[in-house]
């Protein structure tokens, strides 16, 4: 698996798209920091960008890589290598190279700006952790979609739909159900509902950092426990990890049964 990971990774970091992605983050980080000169604002803007853009890039890249390397995969399948190694290896190759682009692309401008002397370093660290989690999750989901759909167009459509659903539609439905059932106690429900959407989970991680003052204004005991203690952070991290592990396990499961 490590060999496959190595080859996929090097294949990807030499591709044009990785550079574009890296340059995008380099540019975004530099513009936010050096034109605005406001570290806090830069971190807030980046957090908004990351929760939306990273999942989109993760899904698109994941699906694209899978379909583009289909023949290569078949070549590998004829080699004495375990199937799961091939797919998990490729998955990790994509996810890690995307994460690298993110971390390096944002890390360089922030380091140049003198982040390490600043209090914002924790916010920034959280930003990178969240971004990496989202990359791992959405690339895994993309691989799942691709494994289940031979048809490239269909696969791409499902990937975009998945992103749209997680990024926008889910929260719309969530908001509507909260408003519709506002006469009932809803805090357990609302925390539960965030667990089923990794974008919401990463948002929670960010909220815990940026908006804790506002969150603590809410009166529910469950919210108080969730946001007021380390509990929320712990639960969110655990749930995010599950969101990585479960799709990866399914890649493992599905790849062993699939015909090529």
């Amino acid at each position, binding site marked *: 698996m490590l060999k496959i990971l190595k080859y996929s990774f090097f294949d990807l970091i030499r591709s044009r798209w990785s550079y574009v992605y890296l340059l995008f983050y380099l540019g975004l980080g530099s513009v936010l920091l050096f034109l605005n000169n406001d570290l*806090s604002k830069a971190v807030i803007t980046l957090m908004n960008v990351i929760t939306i853009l990273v999942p989109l890039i993760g899904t698109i890249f994941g699906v694209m890589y899978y379909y583009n390397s289909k023949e290569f995969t078949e070549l590998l399948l004829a080699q004495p290598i375990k199937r799961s190694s091939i797919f998990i290896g490729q998955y990790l190759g994509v996810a890690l190279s995307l994460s690298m682009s993110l971390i390096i692309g944002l890390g360089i401008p922030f380091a140049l700006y003198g982040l390490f002397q600043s209090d914002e370093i924790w916010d920034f660290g959280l930003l990178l952790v969240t971004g990496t989690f989202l990359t791992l999750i959405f690339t895994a989901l993309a691989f799942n979609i691709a494994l289940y759909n031979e048809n490239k167009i269909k696969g791409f459509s499902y990937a975009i739909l998945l992103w749209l659903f997680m990024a926008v539609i889910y929260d719309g439905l969530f*908001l509507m159900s*909260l408003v519709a059932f506002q006469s009932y106690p809803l805090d357990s429900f609302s925390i539960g509902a965030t667990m089923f959407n990794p974008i919401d989970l990463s*948002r929670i991680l960010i909220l815990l950092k940026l908006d804790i003052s*506002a969150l603590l204004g809410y009166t529910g005991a469950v919210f108080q426990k969730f946001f007021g203690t380390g509990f929320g952070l712990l639960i969110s991290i655990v749930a995010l990890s599950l969101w990585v592990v479960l799709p990866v396990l399914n890649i493992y499961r599905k790849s062993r049964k699939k015909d090529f």
Partner: protein
Amino acid sequence: MNYRNLHIIFLLITLLVNAFAKAETITVCASCQHTSLSNAITAAQAGDTILVKKGTYKEYNIVVDKPLTIKGENFPIIDGEDKGEIIRIVSDNVTIDGLFIINVGTSYTSDHAAIRVVRSEHFLIQNVVLEKLFFGIYIEKSNNGKVYHNKVIGDAQDEYNSGNGIQLWYSKNVEVSNNIVQKVRDGIYLEFSDDILIKDNVSTNNLRYGLHFMFSNDDVYTNNTFENNGAGVAVMFSKRIKMFNNTFKKNWGTAAFGILLKEINDAEIKDNLFEENTVAINIEGSNRIVYSGNDFIRNGYAIKVLGACYNNTIEKNNFLYNSFDLSYNSKLNDNVFRDNYWSNYTGYDLDKDGVGDVPFRPVKLFSYVVNKTPETIILMRSLFIDIIDFSEKVSPVFTPDNLQDLTPKMTRY
């Protein structure tokens, strides 16, 4: 000749007597002639100084009934052993300096204090340290005094059986400065007290309010720090209060705020720093207030307006990274917002005059939604929320459409 004149003549005579009679110093210590403070007071003449040497004195209900200076050397301990009030001042011109007073008795029927000043003038209480107290320094119907550089360290657990650190009741023209008050019910409490100056105090970790005003007018508080109090600072039913250069920090909780303004008119709130409070300023029924030069940094809500508030001016403030800059619970607006810097402003300044070319709308639709259904706060910063906020910004339906800062600054003050 009325009572007031008599009073002044009496005062003059006392002063003269004091000036001519040589004031004596009476020492209190374990091996001295006077081994207790009460003893020394009984023996002292008006105008004398009582010097309390280092040691522990188990006394309570000490009544200071003549003009005296009571001075502690190296913080002698007056231990009330939880039996009741410790020092009661009932004479003018009393100075208490440098005592360490502990174990004030808790009572559900009377407000026992470490030091109580009753109907007296020209008192000075300074360098006193209070611990294990019920009420700390209680100024009752006493004017023209000073409470300076004291330290009140409580250990309050519940509101119903704890007292306030420094309390003023029906008192006028008192200065409360450079005190440190911690872990009591209200750090500093004012009721029916006018012309009070409160400055350079640090009031932190109190159960309820760091500072609490009720029915008190023309007071000034400047350069104080209020941090991590149960509910922040409450200013209620008062007129013409000036609040300058104070710091309000980390007042977190479901009913916590930097300042709560309730039925306040004609106040000025200038150059304060509000940082990381759940609500920086909570306003109910308050009119003709000027807010200017304040910094609102990373608060849950910078300003939350409930109920009718008219003719307020909010200008030249910095609103930085607050979750919500402003929340309104009605569609009407009669307040003026101008020349503020909003970190959430995304407009542009093509004519380079430092003022944004498009107005800023500080009230988001989402704040309205959260007011209605508090649980929705969990959706903050979601793309979906950004989209509905944007559509509301374009055509306001739920939020006051005339509420905007027409001259948002491009750079912070």
